[in-house]
């Protein structure tokens, strides 16, 4: 059975998304795997609005409250060895309690450390990255395109990452 993308959305929003025009940009980029998974270094990226509490500011939810059609286009850096109590969630559109209870439902650092320990993957990058998925309404992705996306790409490459697992929030 195909996944129902609209299972958890209102009928109004579902209808809006279905009728929205989006140009499919071709060709879709493609990088073949560089080798077997047990020789591969993984990076993790999510759009869950996560941040490293006490080290970086949260996403700017105050501005979003003042300007509801705007969403913070930045990114935050989380060490793979982050302590659970240092994880913050700044996202007006998510239920955060379960993420704070177990980061791995969105950013699976512990699971990937286990996979590396089992020899299923080569290694996990030292840092993971979070964006905040709400980019305004209607969405404006120019900040991701022009600034934060290229910067996270540069950092992942500098960390010798071969593969990235992305989790949408």
């Amino acid at each position, binding site marked *: 059975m195909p996944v129902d993308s609209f299972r958890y959305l209102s009928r109004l929003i579902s209808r809006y998304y279905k009728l929205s025009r989006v140009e499919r940009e071709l060709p879709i980029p493609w990088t073949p795997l560089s080798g077997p998974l047990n020789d591969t270094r993984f990076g993790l*990226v999510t759009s869950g609005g996560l941040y490293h509490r006490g080290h970086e500011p949260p996403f700017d939810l105050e501005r979003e409250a003042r300007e*509801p059609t705007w969403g913070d286009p930045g990114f935050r850096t989380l060490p793979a060895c982050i302590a659970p109590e240092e994880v913050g969630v700044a996202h007006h559109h998510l239920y955060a309690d*379960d993420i704070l209870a177990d980061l791995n*439902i969105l950013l699976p650092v512990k699971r990937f450390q286990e996979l590396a320990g089992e020899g299923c993957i080569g290694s996990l990058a030292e840092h993971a990255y979070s964006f905040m998925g709400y980019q305004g309404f209607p969405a404006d992705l120019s900040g991701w395109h022009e600034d934060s996306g290229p910067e996270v790409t540069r950092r992942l490459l500098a960390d010798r990452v071969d*593969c990235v697992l992305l989790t949408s929030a």
Partner: protein
Amino acid sequence: MPVLARMFEAAGMSTVMVTNMPFWAEKIGVPRTLGVEFPFGHILGRPHDREQQMRVIRQALNVLEGAPEAGTIVHSEEQWPGSFEEACEISHPTTPPPIGAEMGRYIGSFLRGIRRRRRQG
């Protein structure tokens, strides 16, 4: 996320995106996608359910290894273990986001515009 997956892939990294909205992966064009019918914010499963999280991750790794071409979307058969009502509850914040009312007005006007254009042929 589709935009970021494309950007990483174009820079030479292989990607797999796990999402509960494969609709966008299809529409925008994402290299490799695993769709899961889980609530928002719970894309890999329930808190502390290591086995379920690992099953979804291993499926994603299989997609990464086995996708034959760009644009591959695999639909997971993994079921959300709780009730639909509970899943809906944890899929959304307890306080509506700031855009809430404004979004309803905007979409209402957008849909009225489409109906009007259809009537005008």
